[in-house]
């Protein structure tokens, strides 16, 4: 598939993943996202995973790592729109998204970002 687009919206980076990603694609996304952060100096990242039906432990880890890496580079990350089935599977697998803010929707994710970055 074509690479996942990274959009800029009101000083935040928005990534909307529309289909399931291979490990390679996920790594590539992480890499591009971090590179983008050095250029646009964004204070927040929202990753929308609503289009994904399958989230494996590796992708889960990529998300967690990406959030930690972005944090080191000064940006907060919210993962939004995880579909119910995926959430249940992750919980059953015992995969926790430690240190990652998860939220219902893109709208809520952006709201959360505003709240954590406004007091800075």
């Amino acid at each position, binding site marked *: 598939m074509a690479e996942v687009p990274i959009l800029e919206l009101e000083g935040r980076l928005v990534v909307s993943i529309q289909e399931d990603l291979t490990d390679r694609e996920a790594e590539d996304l992480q890499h591009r996202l*971090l590179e983008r*952060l*050095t250029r646009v*100096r964004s*204070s927040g990242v929202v990753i929308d995973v609503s289009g994904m039906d399958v989230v494996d432990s590796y992708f889960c880890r990529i998300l967690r*790592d990406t959030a930690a890496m972005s944090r080191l*580079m*000064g940006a907060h990350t919210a993962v939004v729109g995880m579909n119910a089935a995926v959430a249940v599977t992750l919980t059953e697998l015992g995969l926790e998204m430690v240190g990652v803010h998860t939220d219902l929707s893109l709208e809520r994710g952006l709201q959360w970002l505003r709240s954590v970055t406004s007091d800075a």
Partner: protein
Amino acid sequence: MESQSFTLSEDRAAAIRILAGALRGDESWLTSVRTALTRDLPPEVIPTDEAEWTDSTRESFERLLAGAEDRDLTAYFRTQRERIAEMAAADLSLRTITRATSDLRDPIVAHLRTVIADIADQRTAVDALDYLLRESLIIAGEVYATEREDKVEDEFRLAIRRLSTPVIQVWDEIQVLPLVGVIDSTRAKQMTEQLLERIVEEQARVVIIDITGVPTVDTAVADHLLKTAKAAGLVGARAILVGISPQVAQTLVRLGVSLGDVETYSDMRSGLEHALRQLGYVIERRVV
């Protein structure tokens, strides 16, 4: 160079014995040598007490004679080297010392001509004297070269140390520590000390540590940075880490390194902005 030894051939040892014998018999030459030295050297390096000076000269003379007996002048030249090193330490120029050494020749040769009757012996004694003076000059050259090297090296090291950890005041109560190059534990310790000193001195409340110029950040480096940040916190300043590239961010996360609650940013601009906001500044751009 320290272990340099001076063993003598039988001929040369004999020549030095003749020289020493001629100098020991009659000490009138001491006065003319002293006159020559006072002309060349500043007064502070020549003992003002003439008797003291005569004693020390006589002493080095005895060492020379003992060396000639053993056919080994190592001890004699070692003492010479020490004396030259003292003069070098007293900031005498190499030129002054070589001039003084060369000027010893004339009065001594004049003396040798009067006390040694045999022409062949005279020539032997002068040759021996020339040998001693020549070696002394070489030693002087060596001493000065080494001293200069040491001095240059010390200055170089100091300059590098200063260069490697400058602390810059960018705003009231905000200090910046830009790090360039490899961070090892020595440097980490030194930069922490310097930073803390500045924090206390300038009453800083925020310090921004910029690691853009640090090529690799591994567990050890992260640990150093974390300690620096903690130390800064202990003296009352908040540390912000900036200049984290994607590569560094990836490395740190993959290594599982936690930077605790130290705030981190990808560039200096964000870090500075954050620091200013923290101190209550409002950054506003007027329409122009």
